[in-house]
């Protein structure tokens, strides 16, 4: 067993930390309060070539694995950028996976180099109000019309749709009731977010406000056949391939958030004096922070194991799900305790832990709830009957 990062990985961690350092808490607070996309941050990562960390070299990327991607995104979150920073680049980092694996050469040539150089912003259009996590129940329908499809339907919780040029869109090309298997009849596209046919409405929400979350109303959107990813009817399987990496990246984001929250709390605990001594001297404050350190460290190990398995091409669903579950939990708990350590100051935007807290809470819900992770572990790993 070897717990060391490789030279490349250590270099990536250090380099990313250096790059993101100039975007400080003040920057992220202002972006969050103004509900403004962090363009300067995004452009800096793009010009440094970081967005292509996992994209194959033939398309201009670096061809690294999910381990390196998770280290990158963890550092990004840990810089204080949290989910605002992570979500602005999350899909560029690994979201194109279904396209890389299943897309046509033409589609890849047309889109992937632009993902890498940052000129192409994409969003992920899967979730629907009537389906939630029950993805096979989506109803957005793509009807073939010559060399086009005509798409109608609704999507919800589409991150970054406002800022995106294209959407990786999951549709049904056969209705649920007409499909032999419920996972059949779904088709994936990478296509333009044509504002003439898609009404994008931002959702007002609790945090991560620098990156929008949106409802999409799709009305007779014409999608050229060339924008289809892989074969018709196979879209669900393509998406499925990307779910474990997504869980690992989200786990890394939660971990980074937890780390920065804990660092902030420790600093405050050492500096702030009440009753004539640093408040960190109180066991009531010190123990919860120490406990969070232990929990973050433990969660990190599972995450590292998960990405290691994935990069070796081995099954990793158990570890990826567990990593998401433990990191989200440890990250939120650390943020909550950081807020508590700050007392009243924690509730002000100025000390940043309130922002971490709001963002960390998101990771217990998205991209899937903690309860769905338990469903997975309960039925697929333990072999208990499906409970839902």
């Amino acid at each position: 067993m070897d717990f060391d990062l490789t030279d490349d990985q250590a270099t990536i961690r250090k380099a990313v930390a250096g790059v993101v350092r100039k975007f400080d808490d003040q920057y992220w607070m202002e972006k969050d309060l103004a509900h403004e996309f962090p363009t300067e941050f995004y452009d800096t990562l793009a010009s440094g070539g970081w967005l292509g960390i996992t994209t194959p070299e033939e398309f201009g990327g670096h061809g690294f694995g999910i381990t390196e991607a998770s280290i990158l995104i963890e550092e990004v979150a840990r810089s204080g950028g949290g989910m605002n920073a992570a979500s602005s680049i999350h899909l560029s980092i690994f979201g194109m996976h279904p396209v890389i694996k299943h897309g046509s050469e033409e589609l890849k040539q047309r889109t992937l180099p632009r993902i890498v150089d940052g000129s192409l912003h994409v969003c992920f259009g899967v979730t629907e109000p009537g389906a939630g996590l029950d993805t096979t129940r989506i109803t957005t329908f793509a009807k073939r019309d010559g060399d086009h499809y005509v798409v109608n339907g609704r999507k919800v919780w589409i991150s970054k749709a406002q800022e995106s040029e294209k959407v990786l869109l999951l549709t049904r090309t056969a209705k649920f009731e007409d499909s032999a298997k419920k996972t059949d009849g779904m088709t994936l596209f990478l296509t333009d977010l044509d504002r003439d046919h898609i009404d994008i409405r931002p959702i007002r929400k609790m945090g991560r406000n620098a990156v929008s979350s949106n409802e999409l109303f799709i009305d007779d959107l014409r999608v050229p056949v060339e924008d289809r990813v892989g074969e018709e009817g196979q879209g669900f399987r393509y998406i499925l391939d990307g779910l474990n990496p997504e869980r690992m990246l989200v786990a890394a984001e939660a971990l980074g958030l937890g780390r920065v929250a804990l660092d902030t709390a420790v600093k405050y605990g050492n500096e702030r004096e009440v009753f004539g001594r640093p408040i960190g001297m109180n066991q009531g404050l010190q123990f919860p922070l120490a406990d969070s350190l232990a929990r973050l460290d433990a969660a990190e190990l599972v995450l590292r194991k998960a990405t290691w398995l994935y990069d070796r091409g081995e099954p990793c669903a158990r570890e990826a799900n567990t990593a998401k579950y433990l990191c989200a939990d440890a990250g939120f708990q650390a943020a909550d305790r950081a807020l508590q350590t700050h007392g009243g100051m924690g509730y002000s935007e100025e000390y940043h832990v309130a922002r971490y807290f709001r963002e960390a809470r998101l990771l217990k819900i998205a991209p899937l709830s903690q309860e769905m992770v338990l469903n997975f572990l309960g039925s697929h790993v333990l072999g208990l009957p499906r409970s839902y």
Partner: protein
Amino acid sequence: MRWELSEEQADFRSVLRDWLQERCASAALRGWLDTGDPGPFEEQFAAEGWWGVGSPEELGGQGGGLVELALAAGELGRAAAPSSAWMGSVLAVPALANAPDAAKALLADGITTVLAVRSGAVPALRPTVSDDGSGLTGSVGSVLGADRARRLLVPVQQQNDTALVLVDAGSAHAEVRPRALTDRTRTIGDITLRGASGTPVAADAGAVLDQVALRAAVLTSADALGVTERMLEMTVEYAKQRHQFGVPIGSFQAVKHAAAQMLVQVESARSIVYLAAASVQAGHPDAHLHAAAAKAQVTAGAAKAADTALTLHGAIGYTWEYDLQLYYKRAMLDRVLFGAPSAWNERLAAALDLVPEGSAAL
């Protein structure tokens, strides 16, 4: 809203507490537990007339109701007293409302009469003994205090009806096999009847068992409250006495805060236990919710407080010689006695306007 114990109730509590401190002190208690015979305690308890408190005078009791019984249960818990015979019997009292002779035998003459229901579940009318015309046959497992009983009040399935039948525990056709519990301060027994005869009491068995469930919830919670109070006292006392790193361990915040959490548990338990007792006694429309909340919250909290008490005591709490082990085990048994918190939470959930189980879209 203001609710407090009447002067009489407060007096009763303090006199009983003093009595238990004297008669059920640790050395005597440990003697009964070691010999496995709590008889001497039970005899004294009955002889002093404590048995009748909380039951109607017309049935041979001394008046008062469930609040008085809850006070008694709390004090018995606080003393870790061997109270199974008493508890099993007071659960039977509602069934004897129309059987004054049997009630008087129990309440005034100390003829222990235990209701034959399983102690590991919420009491309900599910007769496992039937009357096939040639006597009562069947068995009831894990009945609290059955091994101490002279009479058993058994729910019986008759041809078209259910009934409660008084059976002499000493009869040749009745067998009570005692079973040991980890909590040695309480005892249970498995009852087996083979063609036994008995005397039916006039009662609506279903309605009686519904009442018994609420009574069991209130009295078990009250016991757990007393146990928690005592554990908190022991813990605070120990934390002041025991020194580490040159200071009493009670000066460490982690210890102090944990003890404060126990106090919060005690106070919240007190609030719901007496509310539930008064509510069940008065037949309040929400009495079933109050009793369920008490059982679910108080006994779960007591088990948690027991863990905290053990942690704060360190290794000494783990020893046989130190009395904390008695309370720890008692708290653990109270948690599952007459239904675990999950079972009582189910009852609460059933009363809420939630989506019925199984109807969610797949």
